């Protein structure tokens, strides 16, 4: 009964982690410092691993013979269910780290709720991922503080990054009807709690370095949960999916 809703929810979790991980990989070879390069790639690797766990489960529920790789590499943009936030371009380091922080704060709250899911498979994947994301959130929050409270230029850049990303945060504090039903059934994370915890985390970090908190983002005309994406996702997938699509079933 919940099966289709559950698959969509797993895709929201898996696709968001995968796309965020793919974006982080774009920094490979050009991060501002060696330590940052290592950190970005490690966070990306965690996320791709988590994405595989979610997509494995989604593929099993679909039961049509497709596996996690097929879901990642052979779906078109309209079939992706990731948050609009994570598909946005990396921009400068302020945009990259603020995007990471907004995502991490949502991700952490979601995983915390999901660790207590009535679906044991979900609870297991979430409990494992939560440990990893605790480190992601700590790091990205510290970067928002460092840039926001740093030099004149770093603060200017952080202030400029906020309006670039803020409108996409509406998706982090809302939920579809089917998600609400899944939450009532004890399977999905409680969307109200996720929204509250996301706001609290963002408010605390912003207040600590006196970054102005914009008014709550209003409804946006696109919706990642429905597969209605910004133009950036198509370009990201074109790069990520090129090889498996050009050379199906290639091995090395």
């Amino acid at each position, binding site marked *: 009964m919940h099966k289709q809703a559950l698959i969509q929810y797993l895709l929201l979790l898996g696709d968001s982690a995968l796309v965020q991980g793919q974006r982080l990989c774009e920094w490979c070879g050009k991060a501002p410092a060696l330590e940052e390069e290592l950190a970005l790639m*490690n966070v990306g690797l965690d996320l791709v*691993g988590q994405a595989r766990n979610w997509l494995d489960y989604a593929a099993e529920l679909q039961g049509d013979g497709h596996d996690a790789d097929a879901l990642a590499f052979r779906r078109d943009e309209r079939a992706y269910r990731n948050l609009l936030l994570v598909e946005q371009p990396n921009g400068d380091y302020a945009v990259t780290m603020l995007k990471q922080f907004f995502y991490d704060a949502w991700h952490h709250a979601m995983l915390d709720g999901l660790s207590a899911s009535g679906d044991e498979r979900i609870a297991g994947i979430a409990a494992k991922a939560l440990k990893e994301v605790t*480190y992601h959130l700590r790091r990205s929050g510290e970067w928002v503080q460092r840039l926001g409270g740093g030099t004149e230029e770093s603060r200017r850049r952080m202030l400029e990054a906020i309006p670039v990303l803020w409108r996409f945060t509406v998706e982090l504090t809302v939920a579809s009807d089917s998600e609400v039903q899944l939450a009532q059934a004890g399977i999905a994370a409680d969307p109200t709690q996720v929204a509250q915890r996301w706001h609290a985390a963002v408010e605390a970090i912003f207040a600590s370095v006196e970054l102005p908190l914009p008014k709550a983002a209003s409804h946006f005309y696109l919706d990642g949960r429905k597969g209605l994406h910004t133009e950036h996702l198509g370009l990201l997938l074109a790069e990520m999916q090129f090889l498996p699509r050009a050379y199906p079933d290639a091995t090395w």
Partner: protein
Amino acid sequence: MRPGELIAGDRGARALRDGDLAQAWAVLAEVMDPEVPVVSVIDLGIVRDLDWRAGHLHLVVTPTYSGCPATEVIEGDIRQALEQAGFAEPALERRLTPAWSTDWISDQGRERLRAYGIAPPAGSASLRGASPTVCCPQCASSDTELLSQFGSTACKALYRCRACLEPFDYFKCL
């Protein structure tokens, strides 16, 4: 299923003998982590269970990190070591729950990490995300500072010792 398939897919099935499981544990104690080659899969605590099912060894292995690229390598190394020791077609089951914790690293594993120059996890996994006191694996000074939350692999952070000035990896609590 065609005739012969069962036999082909069940090569070497036999009854459990005395000493088999002890021998298997001993073999596993020599299978090293590919990225930290001084600690074994037993030291890391990732082999959660070992028994005999339907004529073969059956292992439960828990990955360290969701995205650890060494997971497949470790599983392949385990399989190869057991087969070389005479255990035909051991079955490996990957289990996520309960999630692996650095609390499962043995005392021997911690000592081996330290001797290798990697500071072992300071205290329990409940310190995850906190800032524990980390001692330098070279000179044992506790006067150290965090350089980066993420080191050469996901499981490590990068620290520097203010006493001897050496940078070092720290195996962080998870």
